[in-house]
């Protein structure tokens, strides 16, 4: 047998779900969705931004924020350095302004590759600023979630990011500015139980893992019998927790329609203000 498996070469790769071999070119053209099983593979924040918003309109902000090690938590600094090296980013959330079909939007995109997309002080601050910018500038907010939950290594500081980000979402609601959350694989725990779940509209990518308790936590709590679709986007849809499941290739159009309709009023105010607050 050939020791060089085709999955390792550049022209081919293997679907992590159905294990079928895919042509890289096809896979990229299909927005990294498997042609056979429809599995939506995870995207980096940069790719997500490039595939969602108008070309070259994304203006990244809040790049000065860096995680420290406030608790002097064991191995945290090493983990941060490893994540930085892997993603060329300084934290799990990328935030800024962008345009979607020429409409201005306030944007945050989480990157699961950075410590499982976990929310510590920096991620919480970026989400908060994204929602505050939306409220202040009357530009709809779009947040792509991808997170295992709160970042354990920052302890209670991370838990408080749940309150901080939720407060900012409340401010957005009060300002009459729509906030749309997109649940991508995975959207869990402290992120799900805070800003993610109180968006005006929630859409999810097919088969994204979405749930409150991590599997280890459930196991410890003695939760054994679970339905087959437990903690998936489909389970959430069935139970009325999200609005729609939107395949990746329809995401941009769906978001644009939502921004145009729900954000119509806010965007008029934005225009009346000459484009800035």
């Amino acid at each position, binding site marked *: 047998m050939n020791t060089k498996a085709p999955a390792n070469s550049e022209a081919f790769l293997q679907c992590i779900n159905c294990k079928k071999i895919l042509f890289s070119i096809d896979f990229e053209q299909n927005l990294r969705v498997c042609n056979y099983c429809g599995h939506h593979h995870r995207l980096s924040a940069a790719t997500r931004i490039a595939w969602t918003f108008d070309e070259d309109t994304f203006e990244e902000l809040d790049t000065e*924020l860096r995680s420290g090690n406030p608790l002097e938590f064991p191995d945290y600094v090493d983990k941060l350095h490893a994540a930085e090296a892997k993603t060329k980013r300084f934290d799990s959330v990328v935030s800024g302004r962008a345009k979607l079909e020429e409409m201005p939007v306030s944007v945050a995109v989480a990157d699961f590759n950075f410590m499982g997309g976990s929310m510590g002080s920096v991620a919480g601050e970026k989400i908060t600023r994204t929602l505050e910018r939306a409220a202040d500038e009357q530009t709809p907010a779009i947040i792509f979630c991808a997170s295992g939950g709160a970042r354990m290594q920052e302890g*209670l500081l991370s838990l*408080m990011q749940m309150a*901080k980000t*939720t407060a900012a979402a409340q401010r957005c609601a009060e300002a009459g500015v729509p906030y749309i959350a997109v649940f991508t694989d995975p959207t869990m725990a402290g992120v799900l139980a805070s800003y993610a779940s*109180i968006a005006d509209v929630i859409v999810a990518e097919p088969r994204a893992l979405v749930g409150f308790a991590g599997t280890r936590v459930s196991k410890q709590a003695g939760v054994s019998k679970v339905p087959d679709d437990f903690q998936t986007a489909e389970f959430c849809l069935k139970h009325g927790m999200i609005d729609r499941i939107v395949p990746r290739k329809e995401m941009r159009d769906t978001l644009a329609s939502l921004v145009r309709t729900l954000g119509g009023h806010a965007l008029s105010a934005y225009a009346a203000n000459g484009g800035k607050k």
Partner: protein
Amino acid sequence: MSSPKTHKEWERELLELEDFIAKAREAARKEAEPKSREALEAKIEDLEKGRDKFIDVMYSNLGPWEKVLIARAEKRPYTLDYVQALFSEYVELQGDRRGFADNAIIGGPALFNGQPVMVVGHQKGRNIQERQFRNFGMAKPEGYRKAIRLFDMAERFRMPVISFVDTPAADPGVESESRGISEAIAAAIMKMFELTVPTVAVVIGEGGSGGAIGIAASNRVLMLENSVYSVIPPEGCAAILWRMPERGPDASKALKLTAASALEYGLIDEILPEPKGGAHRSPVETFATVKEAIEKHLGALQKLSPEVVKTDRYDKYRGMGRFEIAEG
């Protein structure tokens, strides 16, 4: 030496000593001969002095794991004990009006020093039946939805909200996921930020992650000296870090889950001292401390206008977090 896993186990020697003192006292009571009785009583007095010293030593310089055990102690006063001691005319209100009822979060209107307030808190149980009835203090979505109802009423009827926090976590089961436990917690937090009435939360035992913050996003947050507040249970943290839940004591150090740490990081407003030997050794003293603290903070908040009460709360949480700012 392996760490004790429960408060009872940690206090075992002390409990044995107290048991012995109780037996000696019973013997002294039965002793007819005055001289022997006096001798016995003198001995008892010595034993009691020894016990007090023992408590002093045990309860000074408590580590985070000991605090976890004390915070979880069965003998510790629970929410309903505070309700009984601090309020009058409490009427418990139930149901989420969406088809479900929860017994791990309780609440209702009451009078605090004659003033109407809304009380909300997690409730744990002391024996097997009670614990099951209270689901070990782990609220399901309906608990948070009931809390939202109470918060709404508090706002409508201009009543300050007093929360008592004491939960290991929100319920992680299939039922809770199906009914949207995450949304329920998030919506409860969001509701707390809408309020223009003052809100004060007291962590009396376990402040267990999302389950705790769901009713604790208040203007003022107070913690009893031996209570804990954490993003994840130490055992869960140890399971993730080292795949060894039994290393909870190590994780409890790393997580900085004590009241002193929470105050140091600017996440709570005050630490409420407990009687020597913990809140359960003198509940009356504990109730008095908590009552006085609520009076003080509520009094200060009630001097603010409703709008300022709301922005005060926003600003408080807005400032939470520790990060560095890169140059250039």
